């Protein structure tokens, strides 16, 4: 994959406060984007000649608990025309985890955002169909959060076998 070499060009066409930081690691370029302007940045990346990120590879949510801002969102964009890719990153506060939906720009983001809403509990404004995608509809909590309990049953060994069996909820006929 070709390295992304248009960092200045991308920044030049955007408002000065849109890109907060640029990081490069082993040829991978990450733009830390102002959360308020992620939709405009995505639209600019998609439509500008020379960039043309026409393929939405994926959207990932990260939980940095207990530090603040708690959540990160990583948008991976790829250009089929130029064979280059970038990562856009947005940080979301843990008190009020809300981000803007990029579905108006990239329709493929629909289920990715639903997944992050389901598993991390980040709400996306202007999403057309924001509901759980993996867990059952009546599920409580968001399982991929770092403060979510891992399991719910004590592991059964020979020394505590009887005690665990006693509390196990066996089905009735």
């Amino acid at each position, binding site marked *: 994959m070709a390295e992304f070499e248009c960092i200045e060009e991308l920044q030049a066409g955007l408002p000065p406060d849109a890109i907060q930081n640029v990081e490069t690691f082993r040829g991978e370029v990450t733009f830390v984007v102002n959360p308020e302007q992620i939709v405009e940045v995505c639209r600019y990346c998609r439509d500008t000649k020379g960039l043309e990120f026409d393929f939405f590879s994926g959207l990932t949510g990260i939980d940095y608990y207990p530090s603040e801002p708690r959540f990160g969102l990583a948008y991976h964009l790829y250009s089929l025309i130029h064979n280059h890719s970038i990562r856009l990153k947005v940080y979301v506060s843990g008190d009020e985890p809300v981000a803007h939906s990029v579905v108006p720009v990239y329709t493929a983001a629909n289920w990715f955002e639903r997944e992050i809403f389901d598993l991390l509990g980040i709400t996306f404004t202007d999403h057309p169909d924001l509901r759980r995608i993996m867990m*059952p509809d009546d*599920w409580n909590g968001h399982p991929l959060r770092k403060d979510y309990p891992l399991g719910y*049953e004590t592991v059964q060994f020979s020394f505590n076998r009887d005690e665990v069996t006693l509390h196990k909820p*066996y*089905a009735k006929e």
Partner: protein
Amino acid sequence: MGVTNKLGEMGVVTLRLEEAVNWARTNAMWPMLFGLACCAIEMMSTQASNYDMSRFGMELMRPSPRQSDLMIVAGRVSRKMAPVLRRLYDQMPDPKWVLSMGDCASCGGVFNNYAIVQGVDEIVPVDVYVAGCPPRPEQLMHGIITLHERIKQNRLADWA
């Protein structure tokens, strides 16, 4: 003892009713197609020619709960799948049995987490557990024969 010996001259065989019923039940069992994960692969090979489950009177898996009386839960049951499993079990006509195949279905296996039910016995009553990850076809066949032995213990008095 040949059949002629048992039939005698009258062409009549005498046995207890419960023996006849249990014989019929064990030798014409209709398992429900319930492969959930990798254990289903072993279940398929148990039915295939090498191991040939039809030797025990169960050669056809039914994809409908209305036509089956044995539920082989082959694989881990997720919390989302659990209500579906219970519903299918409720739809099966009596008498019905459940065989929990593999570690995941029996006790959660390696998945002690929020998404997986820690043993299908939380959802439906289980008759036979088969250990293994996944169990070999021999082990599944042993489980089925164990179930057959159990059914043969059924007494007329318990049916009422």
